[in-house]
């Protein structure tokens, strides 16, 4: 079971797919989900919708994770052959310098490194400031614009971090790029593998959205394909168990290894309370450890999904990840596997009667 999860996580995190350029990861996900689904389709922006019918047509449960990862796009090649870039998704300047990247040209993949002026030649004022992203460039080793163009690099090419998957020495924590949100996609793949072997009293829509990191855009369009009764958004969240994080910055601490996280608040949504409590009750009944989270910033696809038409009761379930939106994130296998168990328990439980009870909020 552990090896199976690690294999899926490795494949999904190492496959490229920055926001707007998700084709490679979409193909891999479709290969996983096609044999496990009654039907598979995409919306017109590229979000993938895998449908698994159970013993009842309703309720329709949308389980959404986003397939895109934060990355970059080539915008310009300088006269000396260096590459200027545009961030796709949220990046912090300070995590970029000296990191290796892969540029996906229409031919080969080209590895480069993010460079900037060396500290030796900075002014004392510049030394006191973090380097701005617009001052950085990607260096692929060229000495002229012509050389870079000859390699096949052109404006518009997507760029992803170069960061192979790795299991840590404790055999439980793993590090990889793109855990936000390939970890969620992997959980949905494993959920589909489980529900394909048994019955569930509903219809499950596994939705892998595009362009979440640039404004929850794929959720906006794919929710219209599903028209769900309920939504569970499966995403990662910030682990706040690292040094220097105060109670003010993280009023509800989230730790690696202490269970999946149930969202109580973020900047995009307050969950549907009866549904949130059902998720908690289900975790308790099944002896699944969990953590709760209140986060002032950040948001997920649930921010769009819960506002669809007259509203969709929604809850976010995720796992804590250290250093999200970075070249390397760290997550814990126990959290991942417990999250899959929780999703499976919910899908086995939610039926028309559950939906009626959740909707009766008067």
């Amino acid at each position, binding site marked *: 079971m552990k090896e199976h999860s690690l294999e899926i996580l490795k494949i999904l995190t190492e496959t490229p797919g920055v926001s707007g350029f998700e*084709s*490679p990861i979409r*193909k891999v996900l479709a290969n996983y989900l096609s044999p496990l689904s009654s039907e598979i389709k995409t919306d017109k922006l590229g979000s993938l919708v895998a449908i698994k019918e159970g013993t009842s047509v309703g309720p329709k449960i949308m389980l959404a994770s986003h397939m895109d990862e934060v990355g970059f796009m080539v915008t310009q090649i300088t006269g000396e052959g260096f590459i200027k870039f545009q961030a796709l998704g*949220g990046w912090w300047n300070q995590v970029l310098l000296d990191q290796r990247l892969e540029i996906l040209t229409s031919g080969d993949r080209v590895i480069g490194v993010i460079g900037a002026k060396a500290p030796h030649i900075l002014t004392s004022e510049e030394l006191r400031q973090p380097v701005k992203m617009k001052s950085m460039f990607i260096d692929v080793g060229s000495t002229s614009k012509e050389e870079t163009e000859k390699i096949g690099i*052109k*404006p518009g*090419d997507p760029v992803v971090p170069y960061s192979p998957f790795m299991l840590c020495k404790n055999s439980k924590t793993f590090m990889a790029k793109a855990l936000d949100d390939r970890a969620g996609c992997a959980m949905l793949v494993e959920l589909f593998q489980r529900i394909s072997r048994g019955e569930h009293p509903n219809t499950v829509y596994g939705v892998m959205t595009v362009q979440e990191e*640039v404004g929850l855009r794929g959720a906006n369009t794919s929710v219209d394909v599903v028209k769900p009764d309920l939504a569970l958004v499966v995403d990662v969240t*910030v682990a706040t168990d690292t040094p220097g994080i105060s109670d003010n910055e993280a009023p509800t601490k989230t730790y690696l290894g202490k269970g999946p996280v149930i969202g109580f608040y973020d900047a995009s949504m307050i969950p549907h309370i009866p549904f949130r409590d059902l998720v908690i009750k289900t975790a308790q009944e099944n002896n699944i450890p969990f953590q709760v989270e209140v986060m002032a*910033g950040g948001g997920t696809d649930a921010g769009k999904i819960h506002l669809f038409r007259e509203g969709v009761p929604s809850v976010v379930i995720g796992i804590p990840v250290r250093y999200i939106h970075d070249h390397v994130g760290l997550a814990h296998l126990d959290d991942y596997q417990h999250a899959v168990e929780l999703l499976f328990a919910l899908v086995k439980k939610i039926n028309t009667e559950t939906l009626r009870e959740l909707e009766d909020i008067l």
Partner: protein
Amino acid sequence: MIQSTSHRQNILPPAIGSSTLATVENEPDVFSEQEMHILEVVKDKYA
């Protein structure tokens, strides 16, 4: 997870007008040799 919904203007890329830009429609499908192998393995295993 999107980084911040209160600073959306910093997250969204500005419109870049250039006829040389690739578009989503002609997005390259670049798979490494290793990923091509993985795709085949996944197909064999789950199809």
